[in-house]
C-alpha cells in the first residue's frame, strides 16, 4: 500500500508565533470521537479559530486571508502533549504539507513522518529570521527540497539544511509503508519469537 509522497514543495507560508503548541490546541479532545481519518481539517486549532459561540476569531492567523500556503512555520516544541495522530491528520487535511520549527515533540514528529507531513527542523536563529520575514511579507515563497534536505527562502536570504533520518527520507520520497516492510520480514519476527521462548 503506497502512502503520500513528498519531494519538493514550493509555497507561501503561515507563521504561527507561539511556542509549545500542544496537540490539545491542534485538535481538541472533543473531536477525537471519529472512527475514520477524514475531515479533521475542519477542527484544526478549533478553539483558536473560533470563539465559544462559534464566531470567527479575526485575530488568529489562520483567519487572516493575507496568509495562506501549504507550509506552517511555528515556534519551538510544536506538537507536544498527547500522542493523538489526529493532530497530524488535522494539519494535513487543512492543507499543510510541511511544518517548520526549531524543535518538534518526538511522538508528533513520528506521526507526521508516517503521514507524509514533513517536519523540518532548522536552527532557532534561522527560524526567527523566517518567522519575521513571512510575518512582514505574506507573499514570501519558501522551497523545501527533501532530496537535497534544504529549505530555501531567498527573500529572507536563507538556505538552510535540515536533518532527516535516511530511512524515513526514502519512505517519503517513494511513498513507502512501514507495515509493508514489516509484513515482508514476518519470518524474521517469528525466528525472534522462537529464540526468545527458549
Amino acid at each position, binding site marked *: 500500500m503506497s502512502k503520500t509522497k513528498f519531494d519538493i514543495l514550493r509555497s507561501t507560508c503561515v507563521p504561527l508565533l507561539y511556542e509549545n503548541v500542544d496537540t490539545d490546541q491542534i485538535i481538541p479532545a472533543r473531536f477525537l470521537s471519529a472512527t475514520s481519518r477524514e475531515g479533521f481539517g475542519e477542527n484544526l486549532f478549533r478553539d483558536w479559530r473560533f470563539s465559544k459561540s462559534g464566531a470567527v476569531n479575526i485575530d488568529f492567523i489562520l483567519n487572516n486571508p493575507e496568509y495562506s500556503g501549504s507550509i506552517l512555520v511555528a515556534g519551538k516544541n510544536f506538537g507536544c502533549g498527547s500522542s493523538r495522530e489526529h493532530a497530524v491528520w488535522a494539519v494535513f487535511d487543512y492543507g499543510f504539507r510541511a511544518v517548520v520549527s526549531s524543535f518538534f515533540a518526538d*511522538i508528533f514528529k513520528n506521526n507526521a513522518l508516517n503521514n507524509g507531513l514533513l517536519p523540518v527542523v532548522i536552527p532557532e536563529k534561522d527560524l526567527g529570521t523566517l518567522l519575521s520575514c513571512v510575518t512582514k511579507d505574506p507573499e514570501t515563497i519558501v522551497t523545501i527540497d527533501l532530496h537535497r534536505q534544504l529549505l530555501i527562502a531567498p527573500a529572507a536570504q536563507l538556505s538552510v539544511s535540515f536533518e532527516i533520518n535516511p530511512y524515513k527520507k526514502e519512505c517519503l520520497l517513494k511513498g513507502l509503508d512501514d507495515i509493508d516492510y514489516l509484513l515482508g*520480514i514476518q519470518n524474521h519476527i517469528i525466528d525472534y519469537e522462537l529464540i526468545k521462548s527458549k
Partner: protein
Amino acid sequence: MEAKTLFDKIWDSHVVRHIDEGPDVIYIDRHYIHEVTSPQAFNGLNDRAIPVFRPEKTLATADHNIPTLNQDQEIKDELSRNQVRKLEENCSKYGIELFGIGHPNNGIVHVIGPELGKTLPGMTIVCGDSHTSTHGAFGTVAFGIGTSEVEMVLATQCIMQAKPAKMRITVNGKLQKGVTAKDVIMYIISMVSASGATGYFVEYAGSVIRSLSMEARMTICNMSIEMGARGGLIAPDEITYEYLKRVPSLAGIFPSSGFPEKWNDLKSDPDAIFDSELEFRGDLINPMITYGTNPGMGMAIDGTIPETDGAKQEGAASFLKSLDYMGFKPGMKLLGHPVDYVFVGSCTNGRIEDLRAFAEMVKGRKKASNITALIVPGSRMVEKQAIREGLTGILKEAGFELRQPGCSSCLAMNEDKIPPGKYAVSTSNRNFEGRQGPGSKTLLASPLTAAAAAITGKITDPRDFIN
C-alpha cells in the same frame, strides 16, 4: 563487556532487526489499546485483509470516551457510543480480550494493566496513548504511539523506532510531610521544562525514588512525557516484587522464596554511561501547583509566579499569553485564590493510595460550598477496594461522591467538562488551554493539595492540615 543501562538492556534484547541508517525493528511484548486511537488502525487491517498477528499479547479497554455515572445505561452521546461499539466489534472480530464498560476489571488502561499482572519487568510495552510511560514503573520500556503505529503493532507485533538517547534523573534525600510523588515529578518537570527531555528515555534513580510505592512510581513515570521524554523507567526491586506477588492473576507465578533471579540483571550497570544526568534533592521539594498552560509552568504552592520563563521574543509572547489565559500575572501568589472545581482521578493519580490520601485529609471535614468535585477511581477494582476500606463512607460524610471509572475530566472527552472560565485543581497530568473543557483553567496538583482546596474552596497548602 560494555556497561549498559537498564534501558539499553531491554531495548537491545528486543531488536529484531536494525535498519542501516534507520530505525530499529523492536518486538513488542504487550500492546494495550483503547477506543479512541484504535478504530482507524483496525480499519487499516481490514483494508489489507490481514489478522491481528498476536491477539493474545493485546489487551483492550474503553476508558477515554465513556461516562463516569450510570455506566449500566446506554451511552447518550452518539459518537462516543459508536466509538465504544466499534472497539467491541473489532475485539470480537480479531480475538482480542476486552475489559469493556461494565466488566469487573474495566478502567483506565494504565491502571488496569498492572492490576491484571499484564505489565511485567523487562517488557516492551506500547499503547496509542502518551501516558503509556506509566508502565515504566515496573522496569519496562513503555511508550506512547500514534494510530499508524498501533496498526503496525496489531499487524506484526513490531514497531520501527529510532533508539532515543538516555537520561538519568536522580532524586536523593527525604521528602517532607505533605509532599508526594506527584509533587516530585511536577518539580522535576518545572526544572527541566516541557521540552527539556525530548529525544531522551529517562531512568529515575536515587533514595527518594527507591522509597516510593509502586503506585507512587507509576505517578512519576506517568508524567515523563510532560517534559518531552520518550518514556521513563525505574529498575525493579523488592517493592516491585512485593506488589506483583499480591496480584491475583499472578498467584503462584512468583515464588515467595525471593526476588526472581531473572530480574537480577534488570538494572543499570554501575559504570553505564548516560547521555545526560540530572540530580535533585528531595528535601527541597514542596507541594506543587501549576500556574500556566503547560506542565513545566509549575511552582511551590506558596511560590510567586515568575516574570518570564527566561526566553527570547517568541518565549515571552507565549508565556504572557499563557498567564493571560489563566487570568494570572507575574508576581502573583496563588495561595488563597478561589477554586471552582476539584478533580481527583486519571492515570496519574486515580489509584487506591490516591483515594486514601484524599479521604484521610477530608475525613471529619466538609467540602466547601463553592466547590464542585469529581472523584473518579481509576478502575472498578480501585472502586471496589475503596468501598471495602470504607473510603466511600468517609467521602460521603464529607460531601463527596465516588463516580465510576474512566479518564473523565483529565481530557474531558465525555460530559465531565469543566465549564469555561472555571478554575479546577486537578490531579491529572495536563493543564493545556481548554484541556478540561473549552475555556477551563487547570491547576495541576497532588491528591493532598486537591483535598485541601476541596475543603477550603481556595488554593491551600496541604501541610496546613498535616500534624
